[in-house]
């Protein structure tokens, strides 16, 4: 009986490919091609000379690393890279800390006005960033934050989305866990940090990944709030290669190729959390 079953499964695996699976693979392959092609051209262009940029062959006729040498030896690139890295890291740490602190408070403490506070935070999600830029700019001008790191970072130090996400997750923690810790003598901050936070690691990872990537690629607000090139973030800095008289595509693509490295590192470090986090958060990456 078992031998017959085994034989049947074996035949199915080798020759019994269902038509539905072929359609699925075809769609996935096409989707993959659509996603990978721009990245492949980005990498390809970074290996071309200025004269070869409009030669649309994927594999350059005479590949060169000269662009990488030039971009990396240009002090400005390293500066912008570090600016982006520092800003994305600080904003991510700040979000993980404050969003979860506020989310935990809203989820687990019963106080007057709790629902109103939550609604107020949630309502900010409904205002598009383009509209918020004006008050942010006026505020920055008022406090003297224009052209400063703090000016770039302050709008994202705590987000309504992150607070909402963390609140939803903290609500899933049984109150018994927190009460047991309360009886064991921990104060409220210790309960949050030692008990609640480790229980929402997947959500924290998702929040950290989204925040880091969002800030690493942020362009609009840093472009508006900065004027000195020393404070540029990487996307803003790279855009400065596109000067009116000549757009240096090969340099831009080289810079962008280098800029993907931190995102790849983040992905490799946290990949086991990414899919889980995206599923838990009910978000599309």
């Amino acid at each position, binding site marked *: 009986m078992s031998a017959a079953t085994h034989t049947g499964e074996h035949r199915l695996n080798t020759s019994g490919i269902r038509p539905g699976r072929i359609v699925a693979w075809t769609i996935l392959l096409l989707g993959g091609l659509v996603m990978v092609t721009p990245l492949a051209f980005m990498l390809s262009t970074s290996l071309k000379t200025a004269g070869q940029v409009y030669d649309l062959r994927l594999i350059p006729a005479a590949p060169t690393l000269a662009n990488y040498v030039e971009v990396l030896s240009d002090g400005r690139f390293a500066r912008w890279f570090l600016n982006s890295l520092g800003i994305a890291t600080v904003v991510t740490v700040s979000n993980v800390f404050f969003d979860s602190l506020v989310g935990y408070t809203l989820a687990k403490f019963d106080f007057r006005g709790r629902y109103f506070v939550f609604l107020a935070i949630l309502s900010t999600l409904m205002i598009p960033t383009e509209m918020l830029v004006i008050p942010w700019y006026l505020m920055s001008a008022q406090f003297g934050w224009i052209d400063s790191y703090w000016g770039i970072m302050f709008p994202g130090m705590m987000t309504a989305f992150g607070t909402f996400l963390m609140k939803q997750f903290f609500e899933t923690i*049984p109150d*018994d*866990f927190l*009460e*047991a*810790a*309360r*009886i*064991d*003598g*921990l104060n409220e901050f*210790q309960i949050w940090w*030692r*008990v609640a936070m*480790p*229980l929402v*690691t997947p959500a924290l990872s998702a929040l950290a990944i989204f925040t880091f990537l969002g800030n690493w690629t942020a362009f609009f607000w840093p472009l508006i709030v900065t004027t000195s090139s020393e404070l540029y973030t990487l996307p803003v800095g790279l855009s400065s290669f596109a000067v009116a008289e000549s757009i240096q595509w090969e340099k831009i693509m080289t810079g962008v190729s280098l800029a993907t490295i931190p995102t790849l590192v983040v992905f490799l470090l946290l990949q086991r959390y990414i899919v889980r986090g995206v599923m838990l958060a009910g978000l599309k990456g």
Partner: protein
Amino acid sequence: MATIELDRLVKRYGKIEAVKGIDLHIADGEFVVLVGPSGCGKSTTLRMIAGLEDITGGTLRIGGEIVNEREPKHRNIAMVFQNYAIYPHLTVHQNIGFGLYTSKLSQSEKDKRIREAADTLGLDAYLDRRPAALSGGQRQRVAIGRAMVRNPVAFLFDEPLSNLDAQLRAQMRIEIKRLQQRLATTTVYVTHDQVEAMTMADRIVVMRDGEILQTGTPTELYENPVDTFTARFIGSPSMNLVPGRRDASGVVLGEGDIMVGVRPHDLVVRADRHPGAVLSLDGTVTAVEPLGSETLVHLDTAGRAVIATAPGKSIPPTGSRLTASAEPGSLYLFDAGSGKSLGRL
């Protein structure tokens, strides 16, 4: 170890009074079980003792000191929860040690206590495991271990065995009882399971609608229930209650001003009428539950359902007519209106 005294303790949620001014004095080292149906206020009472619920009125003393306003961590009590409340990200060793998180003891002393607790609870081999790799019973032991390491003045248990299967529940009942007797720590245990209450308690407190109906040893409650609620709540299967009235010879069943109670174990199925019986009921067998040592026989007696017992090897066929009778001294009489006890017969 300490005494726990509740004087006119009240808990209100808005207009709803969940606990209505209860008085209870628990002696040092005593094992008291609060029992009652859902919503009777037993868990709320326990949570007030723990400090997890504010006290609306009355006084709570632990070890003679008023602790109404004291934070849970300053009451030196330990609590075991229904869902264990052990942390999935920590090992058994870390979970047990969590009870000593704020302790000023040296690390070696903490380790010693953790190992002693693990040894007592048979968890030595599992100290490096995480809760996900433990059975339900082992998880509950970890929760008890965490409570033990602190050497608290009192243990509070909130339905700790509800999530276990019947066999494990029976085993853990005995383990908790033995542990409490060994440590002689004052214990307040909440359950809705009267078997747990009967088998574990030094003293049972029966609650309903935020009030204490009766307090006493398991035998006292079984033998002398103050009303029909306690009479039916304590003992398994529940006491049979049928309406009736008194007459010169004893009681007559039917319309009347009293309820006649008889426990299924005292209502025995016989081949014929027993001349010395104080109560005899003729009925049709509607169902039988063979339990091995005895058989529970469900009878329909003139439209009233009662449960009687027969010897283990005797399994009467469904639909047959039988007589069940009770010996003198086995009847409980209650007022039909108030449900209050009128004594035994």
